[in-house]
């Protein structure tokens, strides 16, 4: 048996099944595995449960009718605070929603990563987190003398996690050179299987000690690697090494996306323009890989 985890995005999507729980890494308009998400949009998959710090990944999956249930802390484009397709899905009641505090979401992933049924926290007590925003939440009483009542955040177990990284090798070693890796590591650890798309795919990563510090998670968490340069577009993929494979988010594209979303057939219009073909056709429609890689990093 060969020890090689290289796959195509369509091969990844072929392993997915209706009704699965997918975790998607990144944060809002940052470092989303959009090439794989676009492949899901082109597929017949449906009834997915999606767990994410959401951006256009979540909006597009909702608009395409792929989502039955959303578990999220927010769905935002950052410079445009509210993702328009997500907003439509919520206001029409099209998806079941579990809204979580940002930290609580990471806590649920961590519980799954540690194979625990739940982890205790104070986060969410005395608010509508319990009840309205997550009807199933329960509390637990400390067995020690403090007797404190805490919220028991259940494990957010994922069937599959999807991430976008800067560099991967054929056996699943990965590097994320972003300013903030967000909670991608926990998504990988909470999942039965994890697929990453990457800007650079090499036979074997052979870094030095400093480079090794950017290792997101061990390769025994990585099921498959997909070479997808520019694959985070229109989200950003900042590379603090300035090694030529980083880019900012595409503000013009996202603004157009939001304008289209205002129309009743907004997703159909977007799909006609950008999702009519494969990833190469998508990149051609948005100006090509060089144009993606030339997108300047946002300054805050």
């Amino acid at each position, binding site marked *: 048996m060969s020890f090689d985890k290289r796959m195509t995005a369509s091969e990844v999507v072929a392993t997915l099944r209706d009704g699965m729980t997918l975790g998607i890494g990144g944060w809002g308009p940052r470092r989303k595995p959009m090439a794989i998400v676009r492949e899901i949009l082109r597929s017949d998959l449906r009834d997915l449960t999606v767990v994410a710090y959401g951006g256009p990944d979540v909006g597009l999956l909702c608009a395409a009718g792929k989502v039955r249930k959303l578990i*999220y802390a927010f769905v935002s484009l950052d410079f445009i605070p509210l993702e328009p397709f997500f907003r439509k899905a919520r206001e029409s009641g099209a998806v079941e929603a579990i809204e979580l505090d*940002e930290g*609580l979401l990471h806590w649920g992933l961590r519980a799954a990563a540690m194979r625990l049924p739940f982890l205790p926290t104070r*986060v969410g007590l005395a608010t509508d987190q319990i009840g309205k925003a997550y009807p199933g939440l329960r509390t637990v009483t400390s067995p020690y003398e403090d007797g404190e009542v805490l919220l028991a955040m259940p494990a957010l177990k994922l069937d599959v996690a999807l991430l976008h990284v800067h560099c991967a090798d054929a056996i699943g070693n990965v590097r994320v050179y972003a*300013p903030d890796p967000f909670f991608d590591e926990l998504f990988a650890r909470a999942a039965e299987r994890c697929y990453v798309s990457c800007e650079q795919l090499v036979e074997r990563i052979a870094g030095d000690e400093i480079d090794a510090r950017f290792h997101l998670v061990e390769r025994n968490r990585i099921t498959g690697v997909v070479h997808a340069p520019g694959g985070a577009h229109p989200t950003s993929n900042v590379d603090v090494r300035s090694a030529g494979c980083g880019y900012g988010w595409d503000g013009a594209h996202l603004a157009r996306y939001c304008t289209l979303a205002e129309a009743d057939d907004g997703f159909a219009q977007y799909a006609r323009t950008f999702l009519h073909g494969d990833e190469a056709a998508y990149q051609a429609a948005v100006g090509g890989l060089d144009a993606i890689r030339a997108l300047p990093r946002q300054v805050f």
Partner: protein
Amino acid sequence: MATASDFTLAELLICACAEVWRGDGEVLATGIGVIPRLAQGLAKLTHSPQLMITDGEAYLTENPVALGAKNHEGRVYAGWMPYARVFDNVWSGRRHALVGPVQIDRWGQANISCVGDFARPKRQLLGLRGFPGNSINHTNSFFVPHHSPRVFVSGEVDVVCSVGYRRERWGSGIRQDFMRLHRIVTDLCVMDFGGPDHAIRVISLHPGVSFDAVQAATGFALVKAADLVETAHPTEEQLAIIRQLDPQNLRSQQIKGNPPGRRA
């Protein structure tokens, strides 16, 4: 220090917001939005150098960055503050955030999630974001750029995203002692929670604003502080720092019409 004779309402608000962090020591100060963010920089560069602040992304800096920069040139970083560490600071109580809710009720509970029924909202807003965790773990203050009964609602907020002082919300055994609601800075006044049973109390009025005007713009009864004063005017030193932190005058776009700080 001489107070300035001429200043905008936005500049007055930046100075009033900066005050929320006075005396906090080495906490992570997080101001969300242009005015709160300028305020956190002003606080650090004046009365509270101990504050830890970020560059707006994932790094700590001892030199507050100017808003509207075109690139990262010249930035120097004291450390790293990815979201994982923000959560560590939040959960250990070492943070004071200044945030802008959509709704606030008489108990200090705040909403940014949605308006209407949660299952099918009339208007989906930002979601819970970090409000539940922030509010039960560390000090929070609020900034409200347009003080109105739509923000300061008469009943309970539609979705209680952040904890407040409503007793019925706190079951037995839940620790309430890590929460602290400090100040509310609005375009009309500054308030705290110093009334009976943590009732919201007006402690200073902006120039030209009456207590009655504040009460009329609020959906519940306010307490009037015994020593109610006029909000401190910016000093020339503060205005110079604000100009340095905001060279493109983004603050002028934050309050409709960019009115002067002294109302007629």
